[in-house]
Every structure is written in C-alpha cells, then in structure tokens.
C-alpha cells in the first residue's frame, strides 16, 4: 500500500469525514427545554449567585409543563458535584417555597415538591453507601433546616442514625470515620438551630464522635507523618488529624452556641422573609438506617479465599501544615475546617479533569464570604479584610493539595494526579502559586530533618522532581549548600540525592548537572554521580579473567544464535571453568556472563531489552531452573550490570518477574541481602539497611504477587459464573424434558464437576496465593533480621536497636550514617505493615508465628517495637 496516496490529496475526504463526526456530536448534544433548565440550575452563580437567584427562580416557575424529577435531579447534581454552592441551592429552594403569583395559596409549594423528590435521590445514595454524596446531601439538609424548610427534629434523627454507626459491633475505621463526618459536618452547619431546640442532643453527638476518636490512638501512631518510631504518643506539631479537627471545631462552636458559623460560610437563605410559622409545616426527613458496606457483607463466603476482594484499609488522616495561621487558616477553627473541607471535596470530585479542578480551586473565594481571602494582587480592594482572616488563597490550596498527596499510607488517588493538579495551578497563576509552591518545598525540606516519615519524604522527592521537570528544573539549589556538611545519610542529604536521581530519570544527566551549583556537582558531595547512568558490562575489561568467554557468548547473542547452540556452548565453557578450579562457582560465573551479555545486547533501550529477553526466554528459564541460588545469581548479575542506573534495575527486575524467570519472593529475598550494594557509592552503603530504592524493589515484588492474585481471582469468579450459568441451562432443559420423558432426563443431568478451565484457574489461584504469602513472609522476615538482628548476623547494623528510643531521637544531631540508615529501615518497616495491612491480615497468624512469636518473652526493644507495629497494622489492638 502506498502511503503517499493517503498522505496527500486525501484532504477533502478527511475534511468530509471530519464533518461527519461534527454532525454526530451535534446530534448527541441536542438540548430539550428540560435539559436547558437543568443546565441553568447547575450553572447557578457563574457571575453572581445572589443576583441570579430571583431570575433562576422565575425561569423555573415559568417552565411548563412542570417536571419535578428534572428539577430535583438538577439540585442533586448541584449539591453533590458543586458542594461549595450548597448554601445557594438552599436559598433557591427557599424561594421556590414562596407562593406563586397566579395560584392559590393552598397548593403545595413547588419547593416542597422538589425537596420530596430530592429525598429519593438521597435515599439511593445511602442505599449504595455512596459516602461522599450522602455527606454532601446532609450539608444541604442542614442548610435547609436553618432556612426553616426541614424540621429540626428530623435532622437530629438523621444525624443520630449516623452516630449510631459508630456503635456498630466491629465497625471498620473507614466506615466509622465517614459516618462521623456526616454527623459532625451536619452539626456544624445546623448547630445553632439544633442547640436552640435540644441542647443535650449536641453533646450526645459530639460525645459519640469523641468516644470513637479515643479508640484510634494506636492507628494514629502508625500513620502520623512526624512521629518518631519510638514515641507512642502522636506529635501534633505541623500536622492535623481530620477527625480531631472536626472535634475541636465542634467543641469550639458548642461553647458559643454555634453563633460563630455565620462568619464561616454564606447563608443566603436567611435573606428570605420568615415563613409563616402558624401555617407552615416543615418537611420531616424520613427515618433512615445506614446500610452495611457492600464489601463488608460477607467476606468469608469461601474457604479458599478467591471471593475475598481486598478492601483498602482506612486510616486516620493526618494533614501536614505548611503555613502559619495568618497565611492559611488553622483547620482546628470553624472557618479553617470549612475551607479545607470545601477544597478537599473539589479536589476529590474534579479528579476527572485536573485543569477544571485547578480553575475551580482558584475561584473558591467566590463561594465563601467576602474578605476571607486576600484579593488578587492588583485587583481593587472592594471589601475590607475580615479581622483574623484575610488568608492567602494559593498557599491555602497548595497546603491542602500537598496534604492529601502526603497522606499515609497512601493518597486516595494516584500520586501523579496531585502533582499534575499543582502543575495546572501554577500554569493558571504562576505569579501567585509559584511562591506558595517554593515555600512549601522549603518547609517540607525542613521537616525531613524533624522526623518526616520516610514514605512522605520519598513522595516529596517524587513530586519535587516531576514538578521541576514541568518548570525547566529551576530550583535554587544553592540555598541548601550548607547542608552538605550534614552526615551523608541525613534525611536532607538523602532528599537532595533522591530528588536529583528522579530528575535525571525524567531528563538526562547533563541537563540536571548544569542546574546544580558547583559545590553540589563534585562527586564527594554525593548529590549527583559524575557520569551519566550508563550500563556497566563487567566483562568488557580485557583484564577480566572471563573476558574472552563472555565475548564468545556475546557474539552468539549478536549473531542471534539458536538457544540450543548457546546452551551447547555454555556446556563447553562450564567444563573448562570446572577444570580451572580457581575457587569460583562455575555456575555463578556462567549465569553472570549470560545475563550481563544479554543485557548488553539489550542495553540501548527498554524495548531492545525486551527483544533480547524474549529472544532468549527459553535460555533464561533454563538458566534459572527451579534453583533459588540461580535466581539470586541472575538478579545479582542484572543489578551489577545496571549499578549506575537504578531505574533500570527496577525495570529489569519487573520484567524478569513478568516473564517468570524469577518469582517475587526471589526479588524480596535478594533485596534484603544485596540491595544496599546497588549503585551506592561505597560511602553510603554500610551494614544491612533499606533505603527508598530497596523499598521500591520490594514494593515491585509484593505488588506483582498481589496483582497476580487479583487477576486470578477475577478469572476464577468469571469462570465460576460461566459454570453456574451452564448448569442452570442444563437444569432448565432437564426440567423441561422431565415431564415428557423421565428416563432420558437422567442422561442430561447437570455436570457435577467444574469445567477444566475452572479447575486450572483454581489451581493457578492456589499457586499464586502461596506465592503471595511467601513474598509477604520473606519481606517481614527480612525486616526482622535487619531491625532485630540475631547476634551471629555478620552485617548487622549496630544501631538498629538503639535508634528506637526517644532519647536516641533527641540526640539525632549527633547521628552518623548507620544511625540514619537504621532509622530509615524502621520507616520502611512501618510503611510495609500499614500499606499492606489488608494482605497481612489474611495471613496474620502464620506470619506472626514465623517471624514475631520469638519476641514474645523477650525484652528486646526492637522486638517490642516490631510487635507493636505489627499488631497495630493487623488490627490486634483496635
């Protein structure tokens, strides 16, 4: 086929086709009058909500024939997808309660009809246990209660049905937390009328949330980002925990009878005249029961475990504070809590479109009271700043987004979303967002030396690198030059090194080198390597005793020799290596030569590597056999080859697992024994420890094993359904035949056994479950041997036990390389236990018995700490 023919002269046809598309889209978007009204309601407030309200009211009243479901749907979308507009929707609904000009006063107000229909939508959110939508509808109901449209008693009952969740037997932390937010936030908004009506009920709700919060101390210890390994108490400097801020705010408001809320958010519905209390009957919200979580219904329906879907654990949420209270609001104050909640909801809801999300975040002040945020630079000051407010919008937003990004053990959405969102914010308003980002980086950098959790610090470096790669790698590195005097593994220096490594991966060595000031470019600053991270083929050197043997293998690969021929050649080489008898293991040398030569062939790019591996897959499998030593040799050879490029080590390990040359357990085992030697300048290595790089390798291995179980589980479920359906059909047919010919029916009896596909899927599933358990077990064992080493461990870190004490932490200014290494290893152990807790729980007993039971009667401080991390993560303490 000629490309030219279509490349040129095809213009007309292409344009024509293009117009077809255009027409398709037009047709799809044709709007009915109902749709137009719906859109008008959703778009309320594009210019000025207060001014638009009467106009929109009229438009709704004029719309005939009346379509209540369309109206209530528009309200539902507005309330659940644009929660910052909730007070204005409440005001709109209030207006729709006014008697219409033409009709008699006896008719049911239009607003009431909408509200009754709106309730049905709420009920369906609740039935699906859609927590966010449920909570946002409660906001709306609370506003309506203040507006007088909903009866105070019925709102109280609604809130109580959420605090009732907190008392459920065995309630999960996530469910309880969300229920508490529903009740608590409803109370913030409607507290003034609720308290006037029934003061005791306020205490009752607050106490219920408080009682639940008191049970979460241990969980908090494990996910607070600035708490030292040792301390069992949570440090609150620089962080705030979500439920605790809610409680602080509620207690604060309760003291002032909730009058303070009038300065926290607009209440435009208060502008309407009072309803006639003698004749007006407010809407009674119907009674509800919060249904159980779908996923928690029947977790143990199958013994083999293939029906169990993994539910992510939910933890207390600690947000890092980056700015003082006069720059961004304190979330422990009512106004601060409301602003942060509003921003968090925007970030969550608009995840599908980060560009729109950024715009809406920067427009947020429009929906809060005037004077809350400083006006844009250069904009005329139309309102006086409110005393105690006048915050800086961009700093508030960045603090909030970074707060979610850094949540432990992981952020709710993919990390890259928050990074991309900050990029968009910077693009929209570089002059105001840029400085906020710069200050955040400095604050987080400072926090790394005050005990910022290792996972938070790793994510900080990742964000830093991606952010810089979007903005020309412009960072003022020179302000950190004095920190080069700190010990080489100090978290600040680890951060610089890591950030630079990540930047190089996104760009290239030269590019990043030239962004650094001279003192950081020098190799003994340990910030950047002096050469680009290329391959290191050990046998390239003619003085290497195996140089020629390796060259012969390399040539076979270059000539694309057949696998059989390579194997024959290897047999000859092995024989001569064995006869040489120079003390080296001939198999190990052979594996190293083969793997390194193959990687050399594939060193030009990722896809060259894949091509090389796929061409010699059979050879590699043969080489690996079923021998763990062989697999470790393969990993060692690969890591040595890419020792200057740790990204490639991760990639190669990932694909070696993907091609089933090694198993995840091999990688986990290898990492604990050999990880520290990869790409580390000798100065950085030292005794047994784990840094972020080794953690990445472990995570890659564990995720691979978990991912395979996930796929296998889905496959089993699909095949089971197929089998069941087939049985159903056979049975139905049999039932039909039965009546006609009872004898023949026996011959078509439903098959009792599983289909061959299902049998093999079940077999695969049980193999993969074993592998999953093995990799988790190996990892836990690895941590135990690093952190509580046995006396005969030759490479034990002498400080792994000492750094856990609080005194040691206070003395950290005097720590050297090994202390910081030990401290970081503890951090990864915490991360392992909390992020994989849903998996660890499944094998809790076995894993505990293998690795931790030995500490039961000991007084080893490391053993004690390991046990308490473990029991918190697996829920023994909860």
């Amino acid at each position: 086929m000629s490309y030219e023919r279509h490349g040129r002269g095809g213009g007309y046809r292409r344009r024509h086709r293009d117009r077809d598309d255009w027409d398709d889209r037009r047709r799809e978007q044709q709007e009915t009058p109902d749709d137009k009204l719906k859109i008008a309601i959703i778009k309320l407030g594009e210019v000025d909500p207060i001014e638009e309200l009467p106009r929109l009211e009229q438009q709704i009243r004029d719309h005939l024939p009346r379509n209540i479901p369309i109206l209530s749907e528009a309200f539902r979308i507005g309330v659940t997808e644009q929660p910052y507009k909730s007070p204005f929707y409440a005001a709109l609904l209030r207006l729709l309660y006014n008697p219409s000009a033409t009709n008699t006063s006896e008719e049911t107000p239009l607003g009431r009809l909408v509200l009754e229909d709106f309730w049905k939508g709420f009920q369906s959110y609740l039935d699906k246990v859609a927590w966010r939508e449920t909570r946002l509808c409660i906001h709306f109901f609370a506003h309506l209660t203040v507006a007088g449209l909903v009866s105070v008693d019925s709102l109280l009952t609604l809130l109580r049905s959420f605090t009732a969740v907190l008392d459920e037997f065995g309630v999960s932390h996530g469910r309880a937390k969300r229920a508490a937010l529903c009740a608590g936030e409803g109370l913030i908004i409607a507290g003034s009328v609720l308290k006037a009506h029934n003061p005791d009920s306020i205490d009752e709700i607050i106490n219920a949330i408080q009682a639940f919060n008191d049970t979460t101390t241990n969980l908090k210890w494990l996910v607070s980002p600035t708490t030292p390994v040792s301390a069992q108490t949570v440090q609150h400097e620089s962080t705030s925990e979500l439920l605790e801020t809610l409680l602080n705010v509620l207690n604060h408001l309760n003291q002032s009878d909730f009058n303070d809320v009038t300065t926290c958010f607009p209440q435009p519905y208060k502008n309407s005249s009072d309803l006639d209390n003698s004749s007006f009957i407010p809407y009674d919200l119907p009674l509800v029961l919060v249904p159980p979580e779908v996923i928690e219904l029947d977790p143990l329906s199958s013994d083999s475990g293939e029906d169990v879907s993994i539910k992510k654990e939910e933890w207390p949420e600690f947000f890092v504070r980056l700015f003082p209270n006069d720059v961004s609001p304190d979330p422990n104050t009512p106004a601060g809590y409301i602003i942060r909640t509003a921003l968090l909801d925007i970030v969550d809801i608009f995840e599908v479109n980060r560009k729109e999300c950024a715009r809406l975040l920067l427009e947020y002040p429009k929906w809060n009271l005037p004077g809350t945020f400083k006006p844009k630079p250069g904009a005329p000051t139309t309102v006086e700043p409110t005393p105690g407010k006048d915050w800086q919008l961009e700093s508030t937003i960045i603090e909030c987004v970074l707060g979610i990004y850094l949540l432990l053990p992981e952020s709710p959405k993919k990390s890259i979303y928050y990074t991309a969102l900050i990029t968009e914010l910077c693009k929209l308003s570089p002059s105001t967002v840029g400085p906020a980002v710069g200050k955040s980086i400095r604050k987080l950098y400072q926090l790394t030396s005050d005990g910022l959790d290792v996972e938070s610090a790793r994510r900080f470096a990742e964000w830093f690198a991606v952010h810089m790669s979007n903005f020309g790698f412009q960072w003022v590195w020179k302000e950190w030059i004095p920190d080069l005097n700190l010990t080489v593994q100090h978290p600040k220096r680890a951060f610089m090194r890591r950030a630079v490594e990540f930047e190089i991966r996104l760009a290239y060595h030269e590019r990043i080198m030239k962004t650094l000031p001279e003192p950081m470019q020098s190799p003994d600053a340990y910030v950047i390597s002096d050469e680009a991270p290329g391959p290191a083929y050990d046998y390239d050197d003619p003085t290497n005793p195996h140089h020629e043997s390796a060259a012969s293998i390399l040539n076979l690969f270059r000539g694309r020799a057949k696998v059989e021929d390579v194997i024959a050649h290897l047999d000859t080489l092995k024989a001569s290596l064995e006869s040489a008898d120079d003390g080296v293991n001939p198999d190990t040398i052979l594996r190293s030569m083969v793997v390194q030569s193959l990687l050399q062939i594939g060193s030009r790019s990722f896809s060259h590597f894949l091509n090389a591996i796929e061409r010699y897959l059979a050879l590699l499998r043969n080489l690996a056999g079923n021998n763990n030593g062989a697999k470790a040799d393969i990993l060692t050879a690969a890591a040595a080859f890419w020792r200057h490029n740790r990204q490639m080590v991760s990639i190669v390990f990932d694909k070696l697992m993907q091609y089933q040359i090694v198993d995840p357990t091999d990688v986990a085992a290898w990492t604990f024994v050999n990880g520290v030697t990869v790409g580390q300048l000798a100065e950085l290595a030292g005794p047994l420890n784990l840094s972020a790089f080794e953690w990445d390798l472990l995570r890659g291995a564990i995720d691979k094993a978990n991912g395979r179980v996930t796929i296998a589980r889905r496959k089993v479920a699909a095949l089971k359904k197929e089998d069941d359906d087939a049985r159903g059909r056979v049975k139905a047919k049999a039932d039909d035949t039965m009546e006609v010919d009872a004898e023949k029916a026996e011959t078509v009896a439903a098959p009792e056994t599983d289909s061959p596909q299902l049998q093999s899927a079940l077999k695969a599933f049980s193999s993969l479950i074993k592998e999953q358990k093995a990799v988790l077990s190996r990892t836990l064992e690895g941590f135990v041997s690093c952190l509580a080493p046995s006396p005969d461990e030759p490479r034990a870190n002498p400080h792994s036990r000492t750094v856990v004490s609080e005194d040691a932490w206070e003395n950290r200014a005097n720590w050297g390389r090994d202390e910081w290494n030990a401290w970081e290893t503890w951090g990864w152990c915490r991360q392992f236990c909390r992020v994989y807790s849903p998996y660890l729980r499944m094998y809790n007993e076995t894993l505990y018995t293998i690795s931790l039971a030995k500490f039961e009667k000991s007084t080893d401080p490391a053993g004690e700490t390991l046990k308490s991390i473990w029991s918190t993560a697996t829920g023994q303490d909860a």
Partner: protein
Amino acid sequence: MAHVVSSLDQPSNYKDSQARVDRQKQNDLLAKSTTLYVGNLSFYTTEEQIYEVFAKCTSPEDGGGIKRIIMGLDRNTRTPCGFCFVEYYTHAEALASMRYVSGTKLDERIIRCDLDLGYKEGRQFGRGKSGGQVRDEHRQDYDPGRGGWGAQAQRAEIERRREVEERYADAQDGPGAVAGGGGDWKQEDSGASTNKLKRERSPDDDGDERLVSLNLPFFRVVHL
C-alpha cells in the same frame, strides 16, 4: 462527574482514518484500550524517560504495569520522529495517563496522549517521506528538541543526538520485530526443561494475537 465538567480521559478526535472497522467497533475497542499514542515528543527523549513518567499511572496491585513502549521511527532514517506507543496491561492505566499525564511536560515538551486501537505491526514507522504522522508537520517555530537548528547547540546535545541516531539503526520490520513485553502469569509446565527450550517465541503475546485477529490494515495516525 460528567455533569459539571468533561472528563479528560474521553477519546478525542484522534482516530484511524483508514480502519475498515466501523465506528461502533472502533469505539468498543477504545473503551477497552490499553494502548496510548503519545505525540509531540522530543526526538531525543528515550524510552526510559517515557517509562518514568508513564509508570506513575500504573496499578501493579491490580495486575497492571507497563507492558511495552514502541518508539515511533522515521521509516527511512530509523531515528525517533516524535511519537511512541505506550502499552499498559490494563485499560484503567491508559485512562489515568489521559487524565494526569497528557498535557504535561516530558523532557521539557508538552506531550499529548490519545487512546489508541492497539499497536499493529508496522505502525512504529511514521513520518519521513512517506510516513503517516502528520500532526505537526507545519510547525514553524524554532524547536531545538526536534532537530533542525538545535543541532549545532552544545557538545552534550551533539553527543545525545549521536546516541539517538544510532540507537534504532537495528530496528526491524515484520512479524515478531517488536517485543511483546510479557503476558499474564502461567502455571509452569511440569515437563522437563527440554520442553521449555522448544518454546522459541514468547508464549505471552496474547495482546498481539488479539489485534492481529481483528485484521486491521496498516493505519495511519491523523490528528485533526
């Protein structure tokens, strides 16, 4: 949340203008697609840089990951020509890239992602005299990242360029020229290792078989 804003992960008007499958079929394919077409790359950008960015959208715990990357090459010179395909194991990962990566910078250029019907043999060659990638051929501005006047920049740039020019000199056409990247986990044969030796090709190329069976003709990428 399609009510208030549109989602960034919707298929755009990027399409295969030559495909003989009807639009409905194309839409069905895109709704399951695990492949992205990535455009506006610098000619110097390496697969490892691409890997680094796109790996941030993977979900390994759901069985995902980067399956493979196929660099778009000039048919005549065998050098990168500014586009590539990134293939994931899952559809969700491709969508995540649309939302979070498309429109951000890679190697200091704003890249653009589109859901793709899937890599098909021969598609890695574009541009050149008879190539298919036409989207930015009318670019007028100075653009050191894509060759042209940037060549006499610094030594490092020249070195980088030399590497790039040689890197894909061995790129081949035809069946099996592009690696599969490894497929789903398979139960190991209980047979002896000699059995394994007979398995010359990767057993893991399911993805390709699926595409081949669609019998798509070689199609060009046209941005409209």
